[in-house]
């Protein structure tokens, strides 16, 4: 089903996500990066729930398989006291992939402290995953959640410090401090999402490129500000003064840095976003504005403004992730923040960009990240394994044809990309 491109208006190329079967003459001239987002993962959004889950699980399984092969192979290079296996000609391998994944599972869910660490990661990943998903729902690929999170965290870290001397160190004080921290993170993160959104709408600048670049700018600006002007003068590291205890979310499990309050808040946000996008007119308009600008404009919607709104909302969620990181985990901004923003891409992609799907995806990814500590500690397998898995998951989910081949082979239902609904441009 490739109906050919819709007519182009002016110098703007309309979406043409199909394959070469469509008529080239119908395509707009002068394509540029800006239209990429519209077809990005559209096939996933349009797949049915069962297909989506099947796709995600298959992608995950393949990523785990490839990761296991990598671990096994690297075991031949690594040096250790007790090799687990000997293969003639190849030598001894230090790592047993099954043991590695089992340790990972135990290390993420096996005990209360481990579970707390997993849920701590999950909470943060819910926000970054939702940040990416919100943009994806509107056909925008926000690679900039990382930068939005870094600047949001810095804003929260700075805004909370003076509150220590003003607010009583009590629940009442916390009821004031935590919202201030969240708003500071959301506003600055939102602003950092607003920039690429406005540039996309009003200057035709592709958001993939601008958000990637703005990540580097955000890290640079934050580093500069803290190292030169706003840092903690008492230390040699590039970090801010710790936030007062009134602004720290109380740990739910002793010895951990996990607050169930934050997790509940994150879950409510996920449900709220699902409701906003699937049950309200505003959500419908936000989605169509990114996916089908001309159609949205035709029905009297300000599509450009809605694209800006989507990116701002996405950035605000990234900023809130940073705020929670400061208030729940690290109690200060420090350079070298974990790459939760990029993890958010994997979470969202794994969730089929569905806000409710983000919940299990974040839990799974939180488990992987948390379990990687145990794997590193107990078996000596570098925790960077999870970073590799993250990339592999994104890669596998991005291959529709791969799943169609698997789907045809096992005959589970329709091919995902035949379900295209965004103007029928998918083949």
């Amino acid at each position, binding site marked *: 089903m490739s109906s050919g491109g819709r007519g182009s208006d002016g110098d703007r190329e309309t979406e043409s996500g199909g394959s070469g079967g469509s008529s080239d003459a119908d395509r707009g001239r002068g394509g*540029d990066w800006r239209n990429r987002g519209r077809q990005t993962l559209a096939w996933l959004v349009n797949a049915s729930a069962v297909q989506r889950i099947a796709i995600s699980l298959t992608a995950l399984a393949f990523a785990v398989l490839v990761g296991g092969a990598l671990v096994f192979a690297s075991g031949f290079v690594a040096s250790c006291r007790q090799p687990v296996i000997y293969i003639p000609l190849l030598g001894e391998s230090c790592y047993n992939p099954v043991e590695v994944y089992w340790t990972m599972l135990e290390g993420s869910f096996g005990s209360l402290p481990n579970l707390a660490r997993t849920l701590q990661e999950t909470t943060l990943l819910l926000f970054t995953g939702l940040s990416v998903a919100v943009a994806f729902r509107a056909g925008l690929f926000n690679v900039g959640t990382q930068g939005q999170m870094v600047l949001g965290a810095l804003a929260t870290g700075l805004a909370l410090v003076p509150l220590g001397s003003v607010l009583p160190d009590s629940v009442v004080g916390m009821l004031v401090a935590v919202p201030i921290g969240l708003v500071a993170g959301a506003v600055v993160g939102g602003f950092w999402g607003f920039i690429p959104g406005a540039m996309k709408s009003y200057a035709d600048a592709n958001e993939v490129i601008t958000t990637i670049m703005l990540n580097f700018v955000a890290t640079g600006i934050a580093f500069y500000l803290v190292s030169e002007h706003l840092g903690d003068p008492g230390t040699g590291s590039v970090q801010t003064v710790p936030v007062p205890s009134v602004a720290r979310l109380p740990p739910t499990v002793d010895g951990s840095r996990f607050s169930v309050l934050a997790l509940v808040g994150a879950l409510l946000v996920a449900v709220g976003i699902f409701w906003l996008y699937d049950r309200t007119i505003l959500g419908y308009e936000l989605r169509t504005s990114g996916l089908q600008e001309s159609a949205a404009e035709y029905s009297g919607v300000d599509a450009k403004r809605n694209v800006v709104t989507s990116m701002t909302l996405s950035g605000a969620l990234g900023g809130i992730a940073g705020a929670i990181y400061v208030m729940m985990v690290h109690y200060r901004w420090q350079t070298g923040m974990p790459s939760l923003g990029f993890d958010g891409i994997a979470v969202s992609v794994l969730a089929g960009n569905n806000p409710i799907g983000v919940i299990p995806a974040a839990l799974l990814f939180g488990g992987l990240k948390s379990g990687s500590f145990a794997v590193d500690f107990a078996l000596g397998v570098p925790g960077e394994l999870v970073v590799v898995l993250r990339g592999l998951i994104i*890669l596998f989910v991005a291959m529709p044809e791969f799943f169609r081949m698997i789907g045809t082979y096992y005959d589970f239902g329709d091919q995902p990309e035949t379900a295209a609904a965004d103007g029928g441009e998918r083949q």
Partner: protein
Amino acid sequence: MSDADTRSLPRIVRNHRNAFGLVLAILAALTIVVTVVPGGREVVADVSGVITASYLASAFRLAVPIAFAALGGIFSEKAGVINIGLEGLLIIGAFTAIVTLHFLPETTAIWVVWTAFGLAVLASAVVALLFAVVCIEFKADQVIAGLAVWLIALGFAPFASIIVWENVNSPSFVTFSSVSIPVLSELPSIGRLFVATPPVFMLVVAVPLSWYVLNRTTFGKWIEASGEDPKTLDTAGVSVRKVRYAGVVLSGVLCGIGGAGLALNVGQFVGSGETMVDGRGWIGLTAYLIGNYNPIGAFLASFLFAGLDALQIQLQQIAGYDVSSTLIGIIPYVAVVIVLAFVGRTRMPSEAGEHYESDE
């Protein structure tokens, strides 16, 4: 900016909108520094003081990974496959070069370094080939798959470093020594420019060669057609698939040279943070967007960014400036954002990012 708006501009400005915009932006920034920032005048005086032949030589050296990545991106995208995994390919190249040195006997024999160099190029080309398979056979979304290439490399290189060296950073190895071009390197004052490591000379050759291949050869015309009008290319009996494979693998080869050049110039692999590549692939991508897919323009943009980097290093050494280092580091990223937003759009190959299926 629509075509009508720019029609009044002189033709040379119109054709090189991005470059002119960049120059204007830099001039504006300079003006602000000189007039507004306290002590700005002294900074500019110091800056002009450090621009010497040895400064230019180090700018050339720093341009190697950026410019090779940019050239690679041009070949791939012109052929119709957007390759935003350039950063990942540089990381693969850099890591492979150093890990090869680790497993080879430690001698100063020249073959050791060249083997490392060759394997790095091979590794990067193989990863690019896999990326091509994913994009062409499995019809992956090119932007997401490219991002995945970067993220996988970003995880794999430190992972493997820890496996091999029990540290994300490698120890130092004996590496390329500088080569001097006879006679020219003897010249007063500019002689320093003709003493460099082999990757620098390769870059000097690769830039005009890429331009020539793209603009003056049949293969270049195929690449162009594969990205602009694959149907016609197909009708003419040339396999679009093969041309696209060639474009992507070529980008892997070029990134391999860039990554190996980067690591072998230092003699060490650094895997901490964003690895030693540290955004150079992304800067390469910005360079070819600013250079509007022209190898010469992409090189000039790369050289400009590398020059800024070199400037920052020199200023720290000579004048003791410290503040500027981070801010100078983000200039390329800010520059590309400004260029994309205010100056003009780059003219992307019209079918780049689209899958092509032959009708046979």
